[in-house]
């Protein structure tokens, strides 16, 4: 609720501008991952920022390893990874985040799937969470291993399942 009031207060500034008065307001979202310190693709950065923002809003403040790599890779071009949408190498290693997202998969994903895959891979490396079983009751969950099956899911599904996950590990 406090976030909303802050946002509304911020909005009031625009209204003040509209009536011709100029005021400054300090609201800006924090960037949790600084580009200069981490190796990330520019397109992925807003999703990474939101992951940490949402963790924080659930009262979870994980340490961020100094080795932080999250970028696109042509996973399709390697036989062993040709059907992989994302790979993480920092599972149960608190000193590193190393994630590669299949660029072709990314380009084919809808908005919800893009959020799902980023939150899924970061949950491996930051929260040390493992994949869930491929079962019907896990469908829609963040740690379900087959994001490509989520092409019918919407942002609302992602939001509800992201909150379900973060509340469960708090």
């Amino acid at each position: 609720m406090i976030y909303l009031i802050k946002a509304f207060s911020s909005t009031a500034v625009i209204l003040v501008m509209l009536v011709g008065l100029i005021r400054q307001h300090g609201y800006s979202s924090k960037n949790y991952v600084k580009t200069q310190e981490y190796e990330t693709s520019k397109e992925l950065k807003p999703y990474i920022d939101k992951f940490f923002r949402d963790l924080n809003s659930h009262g979870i403040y994980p340490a961020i390893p100094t080795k932080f790599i999250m970028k696109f890779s042509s996973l399709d071009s390697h036989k062993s990874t040709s059907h992989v949408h994302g790979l993480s190498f920092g599972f149960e290693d608190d000193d590193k985040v190393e994630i590669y997202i299949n660029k072709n998969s990314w380009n084919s994903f809808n908005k919800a799937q893009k959020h799902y895959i980023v939150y899924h891979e970061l949950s491996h490396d930051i929260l040390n969470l493992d994949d869930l079983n491929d079962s019907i009751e896990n469908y829609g969950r963040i740690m379900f291993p087959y994001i490509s099956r989520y092409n019918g899911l919407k942002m609302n599904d992602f939001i509800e399942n992201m909150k379900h996950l973060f509340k469960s590990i708090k």
Partner: protein
Amino acid sequence: MKLKLIFTFFIIFCLSLTAQEISADDVKEFSSKLNDQIIGTIVDPSTGIKGRGVISIGKKIIFQYDVPNEWYPFDDIKEVVTRNLIESGNTKIYVYGKIDIAYYYFKNDRLIKMVNIDWEDLNFSLGDYIELTNHPKSNGLEFKLKSPLGWEIKEGDGPHIVKKFVSDDAMYLIFINEIEQFYSSKEVVDLFSNDADVRELLEAFGNSSGLTLSNYKIFTIENHPFIYTHGTLKKERMGYEMNGKVHFWISFIEDQLVYFMGSSYSDNDYYTEFFKITNSLKLLNQYY
């Protein structure tokens, strides 16, 4: 050119009736003058459409045309004609005088098409959808909505104002700003069903100088809840104080505060027009 002059004359004629209602007799008299001018005139050299005459029935002016054998009306002729009239700025007199118009098309003396346009349609109509998903200030929100015909479409001049639609004395703007977490539709419904929470939000929203908000209602647009509220804004310019009317539709969508604001600083309250624009909103990729 001739028709333009006639219209100009008509506008002056009607405006000279200062504050008088334009009567059916006035319309009849003017139609008669138009009729003399239009008969036999090629009104569209590219198609060969010729003026056949102008008549009036009550406060409706009917323009009649003879069309060549190879001419056929297009499917959306009413929309096209309405759009052209509004965009050419030649509708004010019809709106002012509450005069309906019609276009009748004859081929070999046989009526083949009638287009009837109510004066209300000339007052306000929505045009095409504007896709705003990829606008840098939309923050990734996938949506589109229709802009009013004849209104200027401008980029927002504030940091979170995506677009503005501006007419002579009214303005409609789209505001989007990121909030600090995601909200599901159900959470927004729950939030907006709590009167105390909504009032607290609106108090924060209106807590800036000059803005007085009245009561609120919850509206559903595209299966998503919005708070509707309205009020007044005070604006001072060159020592003169103006009171504006404002209407807001406010919601949280995903992790964005979204509101649509219509405002005017005249005696006119554009609620209906603002409502129509807002109601054209399409939230994309929301449904199964």
